[in-house]
């Protein structure tokens, strides 16, 4: 479903993605972790071309994403993204946040879009908040709305960029629960996170990145107990001591 072939990206002199090749199959849940600056967020953002690559190929569902001439909006409509800072539209109510894209991009009527939106709000557990403004919600609620907003476009793939890193600890769980439910339904997910509990529960693979390279790519249990690369082992020892 997602194929990276020998991808390179530079930020000036910084080699942010260094010969990255990896695949995600339909229905797979892949967790990407690594120290900061390792390129994991960049890798994620290249999938829907929020960042452009300098060398290599990225294919999503058969379409070349790195080709500048393609209509990227169509591809993006099939990929949902959830951000660390939620990025909800502050000037619109929750329901309006959800229905804007289905109406303007897919051409649904307000009623159709609202119906889908309400179902999703119920699914993420906050149907009563549809008329609230984002500023009136807690961080955990906002992020769940953000997930619902991405799901409103009925995407084939969901990308998560450190979705719980900006949350207070007591709210992390409610968001992870939604993500676990989504994974169990068979959604293809690529998640950049430090939440190893989540990885253990639902990830098919864990990918570890360091300085722009993929260093480990293994099933969760193998990753946690038998990581080959010393850098991965150092990282794990720092992360797992928190849990």
């Amino acid at each position, binding site marked *: 479903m997602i194929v990276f072939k020998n991808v390179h990206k*530079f930020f000036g002199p910084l080699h942010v993605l260094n010969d990255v090749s990896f695949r995600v199959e339909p229905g797979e849940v892949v967790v990407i972790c690594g120290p900061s600056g390792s390129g994991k967020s960049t890798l994620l953002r290249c999938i829907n071309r929020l960042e*452009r*690559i*300098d*060398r*290599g190929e990225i294919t999503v569902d058969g379409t070349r994403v790195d080709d*500048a001439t393609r209509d990227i909006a169509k591809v993006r409509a099939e990929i949902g993204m959830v951000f660390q800072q939620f990025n909800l539209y502050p000037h619109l109510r929750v329901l309006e946040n959800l229905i804007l894209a289905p109406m303007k991009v897919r051409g649904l009527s307000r009623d159709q879009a609202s119906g889908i939106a309400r179902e999703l709000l119920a699914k993420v557990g906050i149907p009563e908040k549809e008329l609230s403004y984002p500023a009136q919600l807690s961080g955990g609620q906002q992020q769940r709305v953000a997930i619902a907003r991405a799901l409103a476009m009925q995407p084939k793939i969901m990308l998560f960029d450190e979705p719980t890193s900006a949350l207070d600890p007591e709210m992390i769980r409610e968001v992870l629960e939604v993500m676990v439910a989504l994974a169990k339904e068979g959604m293809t997910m690529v998640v950049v996170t430090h939440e190893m509990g989540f990885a253990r529960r639902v990830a098919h693979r864990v990918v570890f990145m360091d300085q722009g390279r993929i260093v480990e790519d293994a099933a969760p249990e193998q990753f946690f107990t038998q990581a080959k690369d010393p850098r991965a082992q150092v990282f794990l020892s720092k992360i797992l001591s928190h849990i």
Partner: protein
Amino acid sequence: MTDLRSMVRSSRAKLLVWRIGCAIVLVLALRAVLGLDWSAVAPSWLFLLTGLGRSWLLAVVSIVAGGLAAAPLALARVYGPPGIRQAATALIECVRATPELMIVFWVYFTLPLVTGDQVTSWNAALGSLSVIAAVYLAEVFRAGLYSVPRGQSEASAATGLSGFATFLYVVLPQAVRNMVPALIAQLVGLFKTTSLVYAIGVMEFFRSITVTNNAVFAPYELYLVLALGYFVSCFAITRVVRWFDPKYQLLE
């Protein structure tokens, strides 16, 4: 092949295309400019340069004089007791709401009444430009004083410094450093405003251009000199400031 893609997209490539485009435009402009008849204007170059110099002189002197007047105004507005603070604010806001040209005329009419004597247009120009400078500088000073975090004065008070010493040794130096770009911006703004005083007969840059035109009638060449004189002066100063402090946006 993919290297080419990143090369083409790179900002360095675009910058090069932009610079080449600018160079082409400049060359074409230069050819057009040189094609004009400069023989009529050339002899007056010193006269025009003197006019430009006078405009700058007006601007610089007025900024200094205005600054001297602005300091007490700003201090009154920031530190003054309630009645004085409102009065200072009202004065500053009233003058700021008045068109500059009106201030020029107003000072030109009022000054003779005050001094009881004939006033040269140069002095009236200086007076009005100083008034204009004073109110804008009062705001710059106020912003500069506010730009020093409150924590600074609190910390120095905690070490036992008196209010006045705190102001002199802690707040003021930081405020001044923060104000420099804004002060330069005001100087440039005032320089542009000096063009107005031609209306009361001052032989600054603008008037020297119109006078020369009356003598030799070369409107296109002279207009070019006019525009270039102001543009190059302002542009050079703002570029120099930006070179010193790149992140500051000069919004005058």
